[in-house]
């Protein structure tokens, strides 16, 4: 067996040991995983963002404007010292504000308008009626200004039934994904590592 495969096999088994119960072997793998993944991100971010967007632009192309985000980025380091921590609020508010701004039209367009448009279907079909009833009753369930009682309560209850169908469907589909992941891991153990199947 190759060294890489052996290492992968051992680590795989260490993680699976969690199914019996939490134990030092699992804990070893867990701490190792956290460290490796942090190191991985550090390298990837440095090589793929800081190098091309900062070093390359600043030192090789002399684009001085890049200094602005660099200074803002450095202000984030102020977080490490409590006395200077307030300085990081400036880059923070830039990111939060800008993010909020671009999310509004995007949310409106894709989450609301597109979904509305796609739901406007002919009521001469059963499916068209079910979709309209489903959206309206479920939206009523999310209506917060009125207590859910009496006839209105029954109406919103219908909405919860639709929600349950949705959750059930998602759960069913998710089972599929999770089993597939397990198949992938078992294939690795049985085929690639110990060669039980070809």
């Amino acid at each position, binding site marked *: 067996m190759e060294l890489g495969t052996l290492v992968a096999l051992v680590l795989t088994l260490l993680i699976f040991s969690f199914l019996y119960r939490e134990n030092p072997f699992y804990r070893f793998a867990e701490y190792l995983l956290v460290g490796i993944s942090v190191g991985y991100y550090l390298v990837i971010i440095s090589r793929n963002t800081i190098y091309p967007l900062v070093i390359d632009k600043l030192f090789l192309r002399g684009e001085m404007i890049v200094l602005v985000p660099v200074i803002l980025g450095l202000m984030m380091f102020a977080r490490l010292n409590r006395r200077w921590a307030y300085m990081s609020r400036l880059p923070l508010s830039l990111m939060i504000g800008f993010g909020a701004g671009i999310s509004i039209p995007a949310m409106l367009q894709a989450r609301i308008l597109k979904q509305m448009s796609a739901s*406007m279907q002919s009521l001469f079909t059963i499916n068209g009626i079910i979709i309209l009833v489903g959206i309206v009753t479920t939206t009523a369930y999310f209506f917060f200004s009125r207590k859910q009682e009496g006839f209105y309560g029954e109406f919103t209850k219908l909405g919860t039934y639709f929600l349950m169908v949705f959750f059930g469907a998602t759960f069913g589909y998710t089972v599929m994904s999770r089993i597939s992941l397990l198949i992938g891991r078992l294939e690795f153990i049985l085929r690639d590592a110990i060669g039980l199947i070809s």
Partner: protein
Amino acid sequence: MRAFWLLLFCVISALFCPVASAEFTAIDTPSDGGGSVTLCWSAYDFVGSSAADTLTIYRRNVGSIAWKLIAVAALSDESHLDDSVADGKPYEYMIVARGGDSSSNLYAGPVSASAQWYNAHRTTVLIGTLVCVLTLVAVTLLSRRNKPFYIRPIKGLEAVDEAVGRATEMGKPVLFTPGWGGDIQRPTTIAALNILRYVAAKTAEYRCDLYFPTHDPVIMAAAEEVVRESYIEQGQADMYNADNVFYTSSSQLGYAAAVDGVVSRYKPAAIFLLGTFEGEALILAETGNSVGAMQVAGTDSTIQLSFFMVACDFTLIGEELFAASGYLTKDAKILSSVKVQDFLKIAIVALLFAGAIMVTFGSNTLAEWIGRT
């Protein structure tokens, strides 16, 4: 879709400039960033030239003599977008039916391209945005005068106090984590931080430890501010420990493994899983379950909701997460935005009915207008 708008535009311009457009028009492309000219013609004009096989389009700068070939179009085409022009320069265009009679050549121009400040294709979204902004401003102003708005009880929210109280009684900490799926630019994260503000105030009041692991350093920075402010407000600044709000790893399972570690080491009595979660949702929820924690979950990730429903004690579904922050904090500003959401919901339902009825009777106008980009 783009072709549709182009066509619509040509139809409209045909209505407004009947003389020129009967044949061949060149106009500055509307709602673009400049650098393009839209050409429209009627295929009908070339039906007569039976020998023709394709259409060729030429362009020249006003004042120069030589024509330059810029595109070849099929006989059935009725428009072309020339995006190789410079802004502000006048051009003339010629369209030729190749193999046809040269008398059928059509000319258009002069025309020059320019950039527009407004993209008319996005008017629907603009109107929607304005409606949201105006409703929010109006309701916020009104709420200053009137008593706080009523919000129906949200199932499970009373549990927040109960959970923190239980942790205090048992002398165990509280854990709050916003999931791996969101970043600070996601409004869900902001809503989760609002609930964090409330939870942190409670843990400060009860003098109970609060852990906040996250996968995103920016969320960590914002959460530190939120937690520290809550502790100061409660007069418990000495209790605040910056180490308890910490970055784990940006990797999904690295984060999940680290949170699991915290859960199994400190065995919190109450766990809040509020924010945007992906596949790690059930890993966290099951681990929380195994240490017997009371779990309150809430997310806008539609898929993970079903897991939270099964594995957690209380689950806030989608929008409830946003409303919850208002319900808990009784903050008039957040309550009024919940009210705004309700008003908009009424409008949306009304539009849905109107649109569906129109579609039923054969008109897609409203559905298309709402869905256009």
